[in-house]
């Protein structure tokens, strides 16, 4: 594997190998040790065209724990003339002999375009409404550690599916591994023909959550209200926000996830988000570092077999 541009194109063997490797990094991280020789002398550039504290920090930590020289480049798309940014940046990065390039961009397909032009291995850290593969991998790792498996589960993804790269990567990964994936949201936030991707669509939380092992809530951006996709935050919360009452429709041992950052009281209630017995949200963050270490490790080693 030369780049990690999305879950699309991966296979279960490669994913399982990556999760197993991440499992080792969880133990290493918890032991307080680092492995500073693996990427020593290699340069990792975090190229973020969109603000993100969480993902950027996670990649930065992953790179540093493996001994890479990590540089953060934030490029505000508005400040650069459209069109020049991406390819000019690619040329600059080539000149800097960057080895690993972590890219976040507000346009679907931007990391794929960069991957055609740079010598570095490109890792998609979220592109538009397309994919966010490391988020899906860290979610899968989190689920596997708690449920003991990552197949045969019923997983409900709730909220703004239409604009969510997290939802796309997750549903691709989770269906590929043999889980039943449901998406739940108002019809205006469900993308066209998503059923063709192997998921079942629900608009009602009670129906959609029935029998679910895992419930994922997604961030609802304020812009969705202003663009008229949902009338108001309070209406969204009333019908699609994850509250304790709605969570009760899922299995008694159902666990709750959220990719962050949360809008408390919009897509998720604090009582659910902070419930230590049900919420995996903090652990997702921990798994994120381990998964990203596994991804950097894998890409630095070269092609995956299988």
């Amino acid at each position: 594997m030369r780049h990690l541009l999305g879950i699309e194109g991966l296979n279960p063997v490669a994913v399982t190998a990556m999760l197993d490797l991440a499992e080792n990094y969880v133990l290493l991280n918890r032991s307080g040790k680092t492995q500073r020789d693996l990427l020593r002398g290699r340069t990792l550039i975090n190229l973020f065209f969109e603000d993100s504290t969480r993902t950027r920090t996670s990649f930065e930590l992953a790179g540093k724990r493996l001994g890479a020289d990590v540089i953060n480049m934030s490029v505000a798309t508005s400040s650069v003339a459209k069109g020049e940014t991406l390819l000019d940046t690619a040329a600059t990065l080539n000149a800097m002999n960057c080895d690993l390039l972590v890219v976040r961009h507000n346009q679907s397909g931007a990391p794929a375009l960069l991957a055609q032009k740079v010598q570095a291995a490109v890792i998609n850290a979220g592109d538009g409404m397309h994919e966010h593969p490391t988020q899906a991998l860290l979610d899968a790792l989190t689920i596997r550690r708690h449920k003991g498996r990552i197949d045969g589960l019923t997983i409900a993804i709730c909220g703004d599916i239409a604009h969510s790269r997290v939802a796309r990567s997750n549903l691709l990964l989770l269906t590929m591994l043999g889980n039943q994936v449901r998406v739940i949201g108002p019809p205006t936030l469900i993308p066209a023909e998503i059923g063709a991707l192997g998921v079942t669509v629900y608009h009602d939380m009670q129906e959609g959550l029935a029998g679910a092992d895992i419930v994922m809530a997604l961030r609802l951006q304020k812009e969705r209200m202003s663009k008229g996709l949902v009338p108001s935050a309070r209406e969204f919360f009333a019908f699609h926000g994850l509250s304790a009452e709605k969570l009760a429709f899922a299995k008694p041992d159902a666990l709750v996830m959220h990719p962050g950052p949360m809008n408390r009281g919009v897509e998720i209630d604090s009582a659910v988000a902070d419930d230590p017995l049900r919420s995996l949200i903090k652990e997702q963050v921990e798994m994120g570092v381990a998964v990203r270490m596994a991804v950097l490790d894998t890409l630095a080693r070269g092609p995956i077999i299988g």
Partner: protein
Amino acid sequence: MADVLFRKVTLAAPDGLVAGELLIQDGKIADFGTSLGTPEGVEIIEAEGAILAPGLVDMRASLGEPGYEYRETIASAAQAAAAGGITTIAVLPDSKPAIDDPALVRLIASRGEETGSVTLLPYAAATRGCQGQELAEYGLLKAAGAVAFTDGAKAIGSARLMRRALSYASGFGAKILQHPEDPELSEGGSATEGARATLMGLPGIPAAAEAILVARDIRLAELTGGAVHFAHISTGEACALIRQAKDRGLNVTCDTAPPYFDLNETAIGDFRTYAKFSPPLRADADRLAILAALADGTIDAIASDHQPRDADDKRLPFAEAAPGGAGLATLLAVSLAQVHAGQLTLAQVLALLTAGPARFLGIDAGVLRKGAAADLCLFDPHLSWLVEAGKLPGKAQNTPFDGRALEGKVIGTWKAGRRVFG
């Protein structure tokens, strides 16, 4: 200019394809038939197996000039056209500046004359500056040579404005050419809404955005008595609406372009911006419906829909990349692929590329006729070639057909009796 006698060719004559000969004298078609004898001093061209057709009439193309000369100049477009067997192009007005003044209409026509190889027929803007606000001066523009009125790749979105445009144009016997895509429904979109756009995370445009505007404008044509033409029809639903309107005797016509019957939405996989079009490529069911509408006569013409783009316009994230493909050099061969596939007859395809568009434009071209200017295209329907971006004639290289092996190649093109290609 030497007189030319074509022998042992198949003539694409008005009454069908016939083996025969054709004589050019003084830049005009002097005669054609099964056997013409051999006048003295003529150049003889024998091309067994080749077809001699009227020069192709491309009823809709954007050229880079004026305003986007970095993409293409009229001289370079003329080279591509000649290589594609095209001798007449109707040029869209959404250039920089937009063609909304009689002087600009005359400029485009005279720039065509300067090439000596292609007649340029200017469309004029339907609204000033193609801005969709005020009507342009249809009477003056038509007198200057404008063939019809359109805002090019921009839809006339306002129903009130479209009504007035159709109504006012009808007073001059002029047609309005519409980009049939509801601007509100398509705003921000870059691919046809559906499973593919969902998977790629691209903002979608529902296919219904086309049918909705077509349905509205058919009704407005009926209301006003005006003539509406729908450009690059891409959906089966729009074809059905147009078929009905024609059956009812309304003044409605339409065209399509090769990408819409040759490609489907899968071409945009891997974020291939060279397959980004406006309207976007559709599901395969729509592609098949377009082919059916070409076969049954619902669609009046195949246009190149040529849109020159520079690499910098295309090497961008998908949603930011400019839509459109270079289409002049591949117009004939991609259309002939449907003949080889058994979907259309050769006579149908040639009519859609010559007589059909000429009839729409109201020009004396596109038909072999004694005494007409000798605008001719000689092609071998079985000669194969490879489409290679970077090696196409002309400056614009943004073909969606890069890497395709096509069967059917232009051997020579003549403009008013003068050989301009081959």
